[in-house]
C-alpha cells in the first residue's frame, strides 16, 4: 500500500512535467526536446514519460537532454547518450533490434495467419452445400420409400 501511495504521489504532483525555468529559449530546440522526452521513461515513476512526470529524477533527465541538444547533439545522439547511462529500460518506444522483432511483428504476422484462417473458413462456407439443399440421406430416403410403399 505504501508503495502504491508513493507511486501515486509521484504521478499526481501539483504541476506535472516541464516547469517554466526549464524551457529553452530556442523554440525549435525546445520542441525537439519535448518530442524526445515523450519517448523517455521516468525511471522512478511507473509508465510515465519524463515529459509528463514531476519527479525530480525526471527533471534531471529533462535538463540533461536539453544540455545535450544545446551542445549540438542530434536526436539519436542525445537519446543514445541517455540510454548508455540508464539502459534500454528508459526507452518507451522499444527498439526493433534483437528479440524485439517478435514484439513488432507479432501483430502483422498474426493478422496474416488469422486472415488466412478466416479466408479458408469463409471459402469453406461459400463452397459448402447448404444442409437444406443436401436432400435426404440414404437412410431417410429408405424411410420415406417405406412409408410411401405402405
Amino acid at each position: 500500500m505504501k508503495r502504491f501511495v508513493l507511486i501515486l504521489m509521484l504521478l499526481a504532483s501539483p504541476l506535472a512535467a516541464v516547469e517554466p525555468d526549464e524551457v529553452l529559449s530556442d523554440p525549435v530546440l525546445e520542441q525537439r526536446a519535448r518530442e524526445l522526452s515523450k519517448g523517455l521513461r521516468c525511471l522512478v515513476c511507473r509508465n510515465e514519460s519524463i515529459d509528463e512526470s514531476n519527479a525530480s529524477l525526471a527533471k534531471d533527465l529533462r535538463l540533461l537532454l536539453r544540455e545535450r541538444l544545446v551542445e549540438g547533439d542530434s536526436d539519436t545522439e542525445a537519446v543514445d547518450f541517455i540510454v548508455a547511462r540508464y539502459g534500454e529500460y528508459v526507452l518507451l518506444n522499444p527498439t526493433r533490434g534483437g528479440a524485439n522483432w517478435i514484439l513488432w511483428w507479432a501483430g502483422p504476422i498474426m493478422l496474416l495467419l488469422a486472415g488466412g484462417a478466416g479466408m479458408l473458413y469463409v471459402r469453406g462456407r461459400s463452397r459448402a452445400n447448404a444442409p437444406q439443399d443436401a436432400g435426404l440421406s440414404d437412410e431417410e430416403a429408405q424411410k420415406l420409400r417405406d412409408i410411401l410403399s405402405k
Partner: protein
Amino acid sequence: MTTQLCANGARRAKHLRLFDLPIVIGSTAFRAYIARMITELGHFALLLAFGVALVQMIVPMIGAAKGWPGWMAVAEPAAGVQFLLIAASFGALTWAFITSDFSLAVVVSNSHSMKPMLYKISGTWGNHEGSMLLWVLIVALFGAMAAWFGGQLPASLRARVLSVQASIGVAFMAFILLTSNPFDRMVVPPFDGQDLNPLLQDPGLAFHPPFLYLGYVGLSMAFSFAVAALIEGRVDAAWGRWVRPWTLAAWVFLTIGIALGSWWAYYELGWGGFWFWDPVENASFMPWLLAAALLHSAIVVEKREALKSWTILLAILAFGFSLIGTFIVRSGLLTSVHAFANDPDRGIFILGIMAFFMGGALILYSLRAGAMEAKGVFGLVSRESALVLNNLLLAVSCFVVFVGTMWPLLAEMFFDRKLSVGPPFFDAAFTPFMVLLGLALPVGSSMAWKRASLKRALYPLRYVFVVAVAIGGLAWAMQTGRSLIGPVGMFLGAWILMGVVVDLLQRTGRGPNRLRRLFRLPGADWGKATAHAGLGITMVGIAGIYAWTVEDIRVAQIDVPFEVFGYEMTLRSVTKENGPNYVSTTAVIDVVRDGEFVATLAPEKRFYPVAQMPTTEAAIHQNAKRDLYLVIGDEQVGGGWAVRTYVKAMTTWIWIGCALMALGGIFSLFDRRFRVAVGARKRADAPVPAE
C-alpha cells in the same frame, strides 16, 4: 442478547424499563455494539454465501448430467439466496465505511471520519478487499438475473449455466476469505483512519470501478453460457440469442467504465492525457475489444448458425482477459500506476483461478468444439464475411495489445532484457487495425446476408466517400504540421458517420411515410447505427487531440494579461481555501478572445493533509471545436505563478462518442427479440398487438 446489550450499554441490566430505551439506543456503547454486530453478520453472510455457492455449483451440475429435475431446480433458489447473502455482506461493509467503524482494518486504511459521505461510500470499493467483495457481488447478481429471467432456457442448460457461474463465485469467495478478508479486525482500533487515496475522491472515479466490474464480470455470464453449451454439446441460433444480451450488457458497462476512467485521467492528472496504454488500462481494454468481437459474432450464430465454435472460443477468451486483468491489477507483476495492494500470494491465488478456468474451459473446448457443425452457408462477399473481418481485426488488435503489455515480462524472462513498452509502440502497432476497421465498417455493415455484391454495397456510399476524402483533405490543407493522424481521423469519422446515415436511409426504403418507417426500425438497427456513429465520433476526437494539441508554459503575474494561442488571459487572484478534508490553492483566470469574454476559469491544486498527497484540478472550457485546459502550478521564486495552457482540438467528442457507443448497446438490448429471450417480460408484452 438483552443482558449483553445492557452490560455494554446502560449497565442497568436488572432494572431496564421501557422509558430507559431511548437512553440505551442513544448511547455510544449501544451503537458500537450494533455496528459490531452488523459487521459480524456481514462476515457470516459471506461464509454462508460461500456454502450456498458450493451447493449451487455441485447439485445442479449432477442433476443436469443425470436428468434429475429436482436437483436441477436447486440452482434457481440457490442463485437468489447467494446473491442476497453477498448483498447483505456488502451492505454490512458499506455500513462500516459509513459509520467509520475503525475496528475494521480495511476502513482504517481507506477512510477518515472527515471525508465527505459520497467518498465514504465509494471507499467501500476503493480498496482491494472491498472491490473483490463487489466483484463477487456482481458475479452473484448476474447469476441471480439468469435465474430470475432465464425461464425460457431449457432446464438442463439453465442448471449448467448457473452451476458454472456459481463455480466462479466459489473461487473468488475462497480468494476473499483466504487472502483478503475485508472483515479483518484491528487489535487496537485507532481514533481515525488514514483516508482514502485522494485521487479516488472524485465523482468520476467513485463510479469507475463498479462499472468496470459490471463489465468484467458480465463477461462471466458469456463464459458460463459457453461452458454450459460445451457440456451440453449443443450450440444453435437460440444459444446465440441468449448469450448476446449478457455480452451486450457487459460491453456497455465496460464502455462506460473505461470512458469514466479516461475522462477522470483527463481532468485530474493535470496534463490532459486521456489514455496512457498503462498495463491496467490495457487490462480493461482487451476484454472490451473481445466483447465487441463477441457481440458481433453472436449475431452470426443467431441469424445464420455459423461461426459457432469461434463464438464459443471468444466467449471463453473474453472472460479469460477479464481474469488476466484482475491478475494484472492485483498481483503487481506488471508495475503500473494503478496497481493496488500488490501481494505475490494474492497473485499466485488468482493465477491458480485463471489456470483452472481457462485451462478447464479450453480443454473442454478442444474436446467438444469439433462436433459443432456450422449450418449457414454464405458467399465470399456477404454480411457474414464482413463480420468475420470485424472479428479478425478486433481479435488481432487485442492480441497486439496483449503482446505489448506482456512483452516487458517476456523479454526479461527469456531474453534477459529489461525494457519498456510505452505509448509510442501501441500508437504505432494498434492504430492501423482501427483504421482498417473504420474503413471497412460502412461497407460491411450495409452488406446483405448470405450473398452480397461488393458493387451494390459500395454504390450508395460513393458520394459519402468523396465527401469524406474532401473533409480529410481539408484537414490536411488547414493544419500546419505534416501529421497524417488528424486528416485520417477526420476522414474516418466522416466516412463512418455518413455511412451510418446512408445505411439508415437504405433500410427505410423509398416511398411515402419514410420518416415513420425510420422510427419504426427495430431497436437493434438503431443500436447498431448509434454505436457505429459513436465509434466514428470517438475516432474524430482521438485524432484531434493527438494531432492538434498546443501547449504553453509560463510564469503569470497577477493582473498582467498575457496572450496564448489567440486567447488573452489574466490571472486575477490566487487564494488558499479550505475544503472538507483538503486545502486548495485556487487561481482565477479571465479568458478573452478577440475582445469577447470567453470564461472565467478556476484551476485548483489541492493538498490532502491526512494522506499527505497533492492533486490537481484542471479548469476546462469545452466547446465543439476545442478544449481550453488550464492548470495552475507552483508559486515562483521571483513572484508570479506557473500557468500551463493547453488547447486540445475536438477532445469532447471522445467522450460523446463513448456515450453514444454505450447508448447504442442499450438500444440493442431493448430490441424486441431479446425480450422474448429474457422470458419474464413476455407476459407484459403479450397485450401489444402485432404490427
